[in-house]
């Protein structure tokens, strides 16, 4: 017990790294998802193809392969040099982006086309209608699935320990092999993940209640 308390600050340092990576990955991932979803919904064929190919490739390959490709593969090219944190954030962002893309696309398509027609008939442009009418309604509808994907991406960050990022898991590994307290340390790491994810889902249901779809 005392040993766990002794290593806890060290593990919590790792939590900071995990949260930092998660925060930026989700923001970039969401932007990637939004842009590729809109690309998929335009009438410009090449944009549709690019977006669909992106989603297919990411969904069709394991996260770990994407991570190795970006960190080891891209870094082996002469003109690219990514540090581990950047590579880690990029991988989680791109991976989450593909899933967000599908969530956002489905959310937008679920809004009745009468909404678009009503706004356009008033003289609003396509992009004004998207911003004021379609996206606000779509986001409310998407929120549960967005939360779900965010939780998956949060857990995916644990795989970044493989490329040496000093997150909770990496620090857990170091401590476990130093102290041999595998049971206590991995239990603690698990509890930390569980608490953060539980807080995330509380936040999400709070937001959902604030913005109930009327």
């Amino acid at each position, binding site marked *: 017990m005392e040993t766990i308390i002794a290593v806890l600050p060290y593990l919590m340092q790792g939590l900071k790294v995990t949260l930092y990576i998660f925060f930026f990955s989700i923001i970039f991932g969401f932007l990637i998802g939004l842009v590729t979803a809109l690309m998929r919904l335009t009438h410009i064929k090449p944009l549709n193809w690019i977006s669909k190919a992106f989603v297919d490739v990411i969904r069709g390959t394991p996260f770990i392969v994407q991570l190795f490709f970006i960190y080891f593969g891209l870094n082996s090219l002469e003109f690219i040099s990514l540090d581990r944190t950047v590579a880690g954030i990029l991988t989680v962002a791109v991976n989450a982006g593909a899933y967000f893309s599908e969530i956002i696309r489905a959310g937008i398509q679920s809004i*009745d086309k*009468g*909404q678009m*027609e*009503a*706004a*356009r*008939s*008033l*003289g*609003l*442009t396509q992009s*004004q209608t998207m911003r*004021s*009418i379609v996206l*606000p*309604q779509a986001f*409310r509808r998407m929120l549960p699935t967005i939360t779900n994907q965010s939780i998956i991406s949060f857990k995916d960050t644990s795989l970044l320990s493989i490329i040496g990022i000093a997150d909770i898991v990496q620090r857990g590994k170091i401590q476990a092999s130093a102290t041999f307290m595998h049971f206590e340390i991995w239990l603690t790491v698990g509890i930390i993940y569980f608490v953060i994810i539980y807080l995330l889902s509380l936040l999400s249901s709070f937001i959902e209640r604030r913005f109930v*779809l*009327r």
Partner: protein
Amino acid sequence: MTMIQVRNLKKSFGELEVLKDINVEIQEREVVCVIGPSGSGKSTFLRCLNRLEDITDGHVVINGQDITDSKQDINKIRENVGMVFQQFNLFPHMTVLQNVMLAPMKLGKGDKSSIEKKALELLAKVGLSDKAKVYPGELSGGQKQRVAIARALAMDPKIMLFDEPTSALDPEVVGDVLAVMKQLALEGMTMIVVTHEMGFAREVGDRVIFMDGGFIVEENVPEELFGNPKEVRTQAFLSKVL
């Protein structure tokens, strides 16, 4: 003055030709009711007038501007053409007042206080002053449709298009909506109304157009069209609905 001129309008969905050579002129302050069996193309015709449907061939001239001309800014033209839908299509995430204020705010039609004042006047006009702060989900169908009319009027349109505005309503509230439309007609609004309300067409319409199979089969003043239809297809339709 001619408000709407439709020349050789054709509309196809893929292989299916829904409108086959429509020609009609509508004057300022005129109320034209369009009747006909379902699938006759009457809703599609209406939706071509503000280009919610892409026009396959022919010309639609609104207030002197040819909307089939790709150089025309369709959004500008739509500001002058209000539309009311069968399914209301209110914005569920906004209050009634926000619904009415949205377009004038987004399109810079004055400052917020004057737009709000106007919106409240329009809600009073449709009899819904007390509903300004509620969300559409809390309204009945008849109330929703009256909000939708107020929303369209907020842009000060010169023309109002009604696409079966009472078809989705419970019978007991149809009268409330028709009363608002009748009031608009009396004030001189140019209106095209696709409807199954033969009573309304007869009483409020200046002219009635009967469509079938993608054509205008017959058009006349209501007394003549209802009382003395010339075409066999008109007679057959009227005998079923009257």
